């Protein structure tokens, strides 16, 4: 579905990207350029520029209040829910400006799904209803299609085998880890191109966390994933690229292996080794 679009993008972007290095640049999902975000007078993101590769996991790390959440939310315009936000710079998704005045935020969010820190299945709905609610409320009525997508999404979220006989039960009857996978299934059901995850494991025990991490690893074959995490080990385990934010500024960005073994910035090293933050 996205292939033609992406190939166009590659043709446009290749010259600029491949100039510095000999290797061919990976295809990009997001190109963020000179991004600054304000909440009222407070600047939460200060002039961040980075490219997010397709079909890879990009981890955003940094101490609390460094702008991680704001950054990830700016990728699907969720930060705009806070009143009085202002943005400068550009965010391109497959070459398209997300903040162009002609773009409806709802369409952006359909393309860029999100999973939150606290699992939030809708309490008034069953497990099955939770998964397809995005499609339903976006006008899909075809029951056969909904059923297919229900099973497909739950399978992708590695939850199908656990809930297939209980689809009518309340979503909140599941365990914390299952609820979080239900939320992932719900986000996948609308077939986004990107999955944003804002600390998806911070409320889970180690076993549930391991399952989600495994799931993230499998999902990246189909999706571009951007995840915020407070857990250095987790960033090291699951991500291909890591961005380190501090006080709203992007301090360092690069392949995870490099950031963790040989960071260029002193602050990055101090944070990763636990000397502060």
């Amino acid at each position, binding site marked *: 579905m996205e292939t033609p679009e992406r190939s166009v993008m590659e043709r446009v972007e290749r010259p600029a990207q491949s100039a510095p290095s000999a290797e061919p640049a990976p295809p990009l999902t997001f190109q963020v350029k000179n991004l600054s975000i304000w909440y009222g007078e407070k600047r939460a993101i200060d002039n961040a520029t980075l490219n997010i590769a397709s079909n890879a996991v990009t981890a955003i790390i940094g101490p609390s209040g460094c702008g991680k959440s704001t950054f990830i939310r700016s990728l699907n315009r969720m930060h705009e829910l806070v009143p009085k936000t202002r943005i400068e710079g550009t965010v391109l998704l497959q070459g398209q400006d997300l903040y162009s005045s002609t773009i409806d935020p709802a369409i952006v969010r*359909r393309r860029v799904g999100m999973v*939150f820190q606290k699992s939030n299945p809708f*309490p*008034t709905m069953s497990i099955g209803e939770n998964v397809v609610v995005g499609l339903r409320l976006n006008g899909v009525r075809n029951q056969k299609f909904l059923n297919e997508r229900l099973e497909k999404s739950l399978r992708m979220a590695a939850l199908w085998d656990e809930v297939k006989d209980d689809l009518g039960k309340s979503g909140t009857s599941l365990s914390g880890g299952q609820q979080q996978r239900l939320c992932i299934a719900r986000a996948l059901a609308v077939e986004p191109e990107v999955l944003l995850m804002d600390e998806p494991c911070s409320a889970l025990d180690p076993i549930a966390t391991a399952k989600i991490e495994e799931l993230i690893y499998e999902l990246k074959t189909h999706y571009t994933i951007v995840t915020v995490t407070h857990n250095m080990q987790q960033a090291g385990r699951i991500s291909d690229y890591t961005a380190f934010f501090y006080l709203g500024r992007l301090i360092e960005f690069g392949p995870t292996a490099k950031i963790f073994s040989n960071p260029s910035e002193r602050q990055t090293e101090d944070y990763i080794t636990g000397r502060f933050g």
Partner: protein
Amino acid sequence: MDWQRANNRTWRKIKSALASGIAFISALLVIAPLGLVFFHLLVNGAGSINWDFFTKLPAPVGAVGGGMVNAIVGTLELLALAGALGIPVGVLGGVYLAEYGSARINSILRFLADVLNGIPSITWGVVVYGLVVLHFKGFSAYAGGLALGLIMIPLILRTTEEVILLVPNGYREAALALGVARWKTIVHIVMKTASKGIITGILLALARIGGETAPLLFTAFGNRFWNHSLNQPIAALPLQIFTYAISPYDDWHRQAWAGALVLVSGVFCVNVLVRILTRGRAASVV
């Protein structure tokens, strides 16, 4: 330690007993009037409650028997009219306060709603009399319904706003992140999650206006017969009770007691319904 030993244990026990004793007596004082009202109504009114009371029109002066069926039906009609105005306006206004609007406008609206809630109900009757009854030259069910509906609006508005604000933001974000439009998120996710609370607010508002007499005096006016058109004066239970209670006839006094008993029982039933609806409130979200 010294300071612990110095603290007289017996005196502390007495103070504790005193405090819980006072709290208990205060609680009794809260419940006692309700018990007294019910008891009094039962003693005086139960004797006059019979099949006729629910099926017959009021008897002419001097004649024995008769009932209040027109007043009971009239109250239900007035509640329906009031609800037709008060429920949509109140609920949508509450949604606006909780979901839209700027902080400044909202604080003004909230303040005005609280002022409206404090306005004595007879004022509404007079206002509707001046605006509607005089204009159309006649008392009517519409005028009564309008007066009651205006009382409902701020009541429902505030309760709706409060229960909608109780819906965790995570649900709004989850729906918006699926690319669901704002209004659909509000209707299908937020209001659905808060529906029990919204319905509770509506029922409590209906119970409250069901017993209002003052706003009906100059609007619905009362009627000893069936109301055949909503443009005509209509009977209402509280009005009928009022008329009968200030009359000089013993038989009417008994019927007034019976009417009051029916009215209080109705309000009581609505409150029980609310309790049933909100059962397991701790388990669900709102």
